[in-house]
């Protein structure tokens, strides 16, 4: 009986989702010494969060009783200091003998090895029209004094020089001296100063871009990411188009290779039977209104699942709609009691499903339009007797369609083309609708209103 039993957890509960089957428990981990079996069982054989120490270590006295430890306030000197300042600190004294030797922290006093040049070397290698010898000397003094902290050096520097200028001068001088003193250029080729020379232009550019990025506002950032996302989308679309074209080439190729005539006949004789895909629609519209044709990218695969096709078609159909609209379409589907994930995705079911989605999109668009019009109308009513735009004309056209709708009870086959035609018209109307004024709230559901 342990904690896990009490809580009703399986023995190896933490690993349960991952470790599916038996695993050799016996040789997994041996109970380490110093931990009681019960405590070890509580951890479930897992490594403890904190390193556990052998208890025997705790019990054992590390110092023999002969050692007598005292702490004393004693003076000390440090080799890191150049003055002979005497400071005091507490020291652990064993058996009355204070520790000798250097101050233990003195070794951390690191200083940078700054190149020293002679006057002769300066005249020979280091002259620079932009720099006088005095200035260079000052720079090197400061470099030594502030351990190459160039920000501080730039601050202390008597004449006004940028950090990059100072760095450039320092590294150039160091490099030149290094090369001049080396017996052959191969000796210093591996030295970082020679291998990766300081690049002023790049440094300046780097800092400029950095400050640009850091000073960007949230808005700009968002805009940028939007643009990037859009660019990515466009690239992807182009890639798809390209792959589709490739597929086209690939598909037409075998015929061409053998004999073109025969192939053309094949195409003509086969196509009418081709599962009523395209012949029913002689002029395929550029948008994906044909619910049954398969995306070329999939057809290229030779084998795929029906659900893959559906996913692609759904995506393509909603590519023009925003994320919110897509969500609303799916919400509507649920309200209608239709599964978003199809249970029996046959060809016919997929086609119907796509049609349904398109109709819902149409409906949502219409609702939006109606609301816009209402808003428009109320504003018109407010400043009455102004000229009324072309609303009536549109409304009449709407009526024609409406009638066709009423005379067009739902059925599957047959009047496909007519319906599609109708839909295209309807979509066209949305396209020609004026850019909408700020939208008010839209009704989310409509199910309840249907008697």
């Amino acid at each position, binding site marked *: 009986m342990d904690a896990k039993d009490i809580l009703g957890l399986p023995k190896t509960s933490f690993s349960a989702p991952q470790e599916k089957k038996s695993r050799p428990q016996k040789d997994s981990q041996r109970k380490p010494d110093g931990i009681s079996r019960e405590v070890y069982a509580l951890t479930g054989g897992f490594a403890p969060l904190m390193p556990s120490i052998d208890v025997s270590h705790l019990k054992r006295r590390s110092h023999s009783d002969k050692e007598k430890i005292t702490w004393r306030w004693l003076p000390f000197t440090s080799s890191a200091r150049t003055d002979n300042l005497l400071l005091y600190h507490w020291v652990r004294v064993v058996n009355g003998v204070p520790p000798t030797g250097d101050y233990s922290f003195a070794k951390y006093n690191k200083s940078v090895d700054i190149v020293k040049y002679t006057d002769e070397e300066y005249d020979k290698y280091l002259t620079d029209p932009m720099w006088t010898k005095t200035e260079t000397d000052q720079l090197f003094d400061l470099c030594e004094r502030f351990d190459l902290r160039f920000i501080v050096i730039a601050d202390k520097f008597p004449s006004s020089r940028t950090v990059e200028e100072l760095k450039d001068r320092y590294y150039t001088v160091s490099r030149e001296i290094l090369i001049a003193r080396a017996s052959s250029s191969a000796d210093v080729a591996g030295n970082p100063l020679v291998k990766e020379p300081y690049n002023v232009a790049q440094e300046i550019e780097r800092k400029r871009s950095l400050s640009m990025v850091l000073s960007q506002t949230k808005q700009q950032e968002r805009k940028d990411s939007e643009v990037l996302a859009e660019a990515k989308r466009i690239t992807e679309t182009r890639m798809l188009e390209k792959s589709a074209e490739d597929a086209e080439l690939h598909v037409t190729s075998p015929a061409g290779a053998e004999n073109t005539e025969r192939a053309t006949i094949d195409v003509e004789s086969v196509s009418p039977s081709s599962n009523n895909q395209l012949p029913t629609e002689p002029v395929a519209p550029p948008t994906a209104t044909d619910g049954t044709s398969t995306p070329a*990218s999939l057809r290229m695969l030779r*084998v795929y699942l029906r659900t893959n096709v559906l996913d692609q078609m759904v995506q393509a159909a909603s590519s023009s709609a925003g994320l919110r609209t897509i969500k609303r379409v799916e919400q509507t589907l649920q309200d209608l009691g239709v599964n978003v994930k199809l*249970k029996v995705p046959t060809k016919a079911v997929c086609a119907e499903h796509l049609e349904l989605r398109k109709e819902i999109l149409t409906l949502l668009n219409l609702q939006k339009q*109606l609301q816009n019009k209402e808003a428009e109308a109320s504003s018109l009513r407010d400043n009455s007797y102004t000229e009324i735009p072309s609303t009536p004309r549109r409304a009449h056209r709407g009526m024609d369609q409406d009638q066709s709708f009423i005379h067009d009870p*739902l059925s599957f086959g047959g009047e496909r083309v007519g319906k599609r035609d109708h839909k295209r018209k309807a979509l066209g109307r949305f396209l020609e609708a004026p850019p909408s004024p700020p939208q008010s709230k839209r009704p989310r559901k409509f199910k309840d209103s249907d008697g």
Partner: protein
Amino acid sequence: MPHNSSARKHGGEHSDGGGSASKIQRVKAGRVSEDNEKKSSSKRLKDVEISVPIVYGTISFWLGKKANEYHSHKWTVYVRGATNEDLGVVIKRVVFTLHPSFSNPTRAVESPPFELSESGWGEFEIVITIHFHNDVCDKQLDLYHHLKLYPEDESGTQSTKKPVVVETYDEMVFSEPSESFFARVQNHPAVIVPRLPASFNLPPPESIDDMNERKRGDTNDHPLSQWFMNFSEADELLKLAAARQQVQAHIARIKRQMIVKFLGLDDRG
């Protein structure tokens, strides 16, 4: 947009006018992929797709008294024809990839029925890789199925009599099948093929599967067949039709509303 190009493609194929241009393209492309096509010597049927309705899933039985810590359930994963036909006519081999804690977790089943039984205690995702006969398709198809052992409703106690069944319906679609494949499966009950015009001659099917062989692979008399689920296309279509009717009625209503509103406005103006 992929559809853009697919539409373009079909436009090109069916129009006679732009023949010369597309012919050139065809010849050019043909030369490039000649080698590719030689190895599959048979011709491909354009604009034809063959689909094979399948159902894949798992059935798991709780072992009850016989259950122990590591073997609480006995389960079977399978790929079957949607109406239990023999899939051996299309599928050469099915490879089930189990959780790595099983001994040799990659298991190939070389002949129908394509199924595998195991026992264990944990749920995990099974990868089902389908390999096809040479004339069907040289690519393979991956399916993913989550093994379910424990019933969804917490209250429902496990019973050794009633298994947990999870099945998924899907269709394997073969685009532009080879002629020989088409001819071979044309009259097979597991396969949906489009009708070809009478004028079109196919090579005589190579008779490889005799009746005996076909009998063996179907799952009609499968011991688990009483648990198989039914997937009714008609039910789905009816449901969708009802939903579409509803949506169309709403569209019509909104349109009427718009007319009433704006004609009324018109009259006043």
